[in-house]
């Protein structure tokens, strides 16, 4: 399945991984969770604070399906 993985702020550099295609997508063999996706990209789990799956707050254990959009952030705030 093809997953759009969006990495932000200090995690953006991990999107440079060779497994990511030119559209920012990752191909995974199912079944897989968000943790599988970030492990593949080498993102250290302890640097991850916020996980979104199709715009909804999720966890690394959330299951993925084809064409999902995942957003990963370190701890951030503002306002």
């Amino acid at each position, binding site marked *: 399945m093809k997953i759009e993985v969006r990495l932000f702020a200090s995690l953006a550099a991990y999107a440079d991984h060779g497994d990511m295609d030119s559209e920012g997508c990752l191909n995974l063999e199912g079944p897989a969770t968000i943790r599988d996706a970030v492990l593949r990209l080498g993102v250290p789990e302890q640097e991850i604070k916020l996980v979104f799956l199709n*715009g909804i707050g999720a966890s690394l254990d959330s299951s993925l399906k084809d064409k999902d959009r995942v*957003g990963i952030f370190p701890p951030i*705030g*503002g*306002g």
Partner: protein
Amino acid sequence: MSKILRINTREKTYSFETPAEDIAGLGGRALTSKMILNEVPATSHPLSKYSKLIFAPGLLSGSPAANSGRLSVGGKSPLTGGIKESNSGGLVSQKLARLGIKALVLEDKPEDDRFSMVVIKKDRVEFLAADEYVGVCNSDMITKLWDRFGKRVATASIGVAGEQRLTSASIQFADPKGHPGRAAGRGGLGAVMGSKKIKAIVVDDKGTDRVPLHDPDAFKAANKKWVELLTSHPVSGQGLPAYGTAILVNVINEAGALPTKNFRTGRFENAQDISGETMAANIEKRSGVATEGCHPGCVIKCSQVYNDKDNNYLTSGFEYETIWAFGAHCLIKELDDIAMLDRLCDDLGLDTIETGVTMGIAMEGGIIPWGDGKAAIELLKKVGTGDPMGKIIGNGAAFTGQALGIDRVPVVKRQALPAYDPRAVKAVGVTYATTPMGADHTAGYGVCQNILGVGGSIDPLKKDNNVAISKTLQIATAAIDAAGLCLFVAFPVLDNPEGLQMIVDMINARYGLSLVVDDVTTLGISILRDELEFNRRAGFTPKDDRLPDMFKEPFAPHNTTWDFTDEELAEAVKF
């Protein structure tokens, strides 16, 4: 004991008075709101002689407590018609505190049209003619004032928007480098200052002693823990210094809550172009300043200097809210155009949120095309020129919407909504609807629990628990504003059960008090009660605690609606 400094702007006289018992222990927002309730008739015109403008340092301002240099500016808002506390960094708060001034009150108004400025020093207060400064923009104003009075003085000034008493007018403050990037922006208090014909206030603390501490050792110990708390939390210690508040663009967009094209959808396809990451990259490439504080003693340093492509200064204090308002809300994707709009707002003396939202209303009304940053810059430049369109724009979103015959106007109590859609971040939506300030995210920042996972986690798309968390945050925020602390201390304080105790310990050590943590809640509630009472006397009813009809429409991508009942909303401000 600290004094109240009253300035009569008609007679050009001043007096110091000992604060009455009921206000002696108050500071910041607690003091401004109590004094406005006590002294300003709620039905009076905000620009009349009966109106007052009050500047009050927080309880900890002037002390060595980290991030305690915030100032409360209070009055009756010409924008909302209700009570207003607008909070800012800069240098005024700490210097007033060192001068032993608990509150500076501008009263009455001159009968002629001549502008003055007030210069406050250790041993005297002076009125000086300011005719030569009329029409001068805020950045030039600060340069002129620093040249004349010395580089360390604190300044508060209004631009042409304030001079013309437009209801989006801000009061701008010099930051430590002399840029006008700090503002009491919301609610049009710059117009109140303009109505009293005060172009600028200069505060010089030369020759003053350090602020007295009742128990210096206890204070030092508490402040040490406080600094560790602020610098060790990942948000206040790393995220904010690295990317500024604009780091929020991507996360709010990802959450589907970034109001785009006047609150039509929650995702902006060009979010990355206007993100904190892009801003940080430009700053690095163009030799800007990635991180700096808005006042001495700040350890978070979320501000920055943003240069243009030729490495020349463009703006500072370039905030998420501003970038959203001129960016996603208006479909403008050129960050440099947005930076220019921010700079123009600082110089003209306009609230960036109100003005950015207004720009979207001008696009809604066909005055300029959606997404046209250059046209927005030209339109904004009309403010202060005498062009009637400039007068319309400078009076905010509700006024402009009315002028253009538009019903899609995102305001509560005539104040424009900030950068989080209330249908997709429901806790902050409850705050927009119910705070006595008019739509204001800072009054109860439920984004923490809804999106950022700070202080717990509450579903942003459902109603459950979002009224309660808004209420809790509104109470806590009022107390933080009274202490003179930067609101961003809330990120670590919400995550650490000892955080509030540290604040209480510092206040106790400063004043020789024996407050407990519960007193913080009591204080927050009493502030809100004062503000709600003022608004009640001004004619506000629960019907004013509502979002406009446009929020009944489903909001993509989550297709949620604004679905709180009147009874549910009423709970947020029931004490």
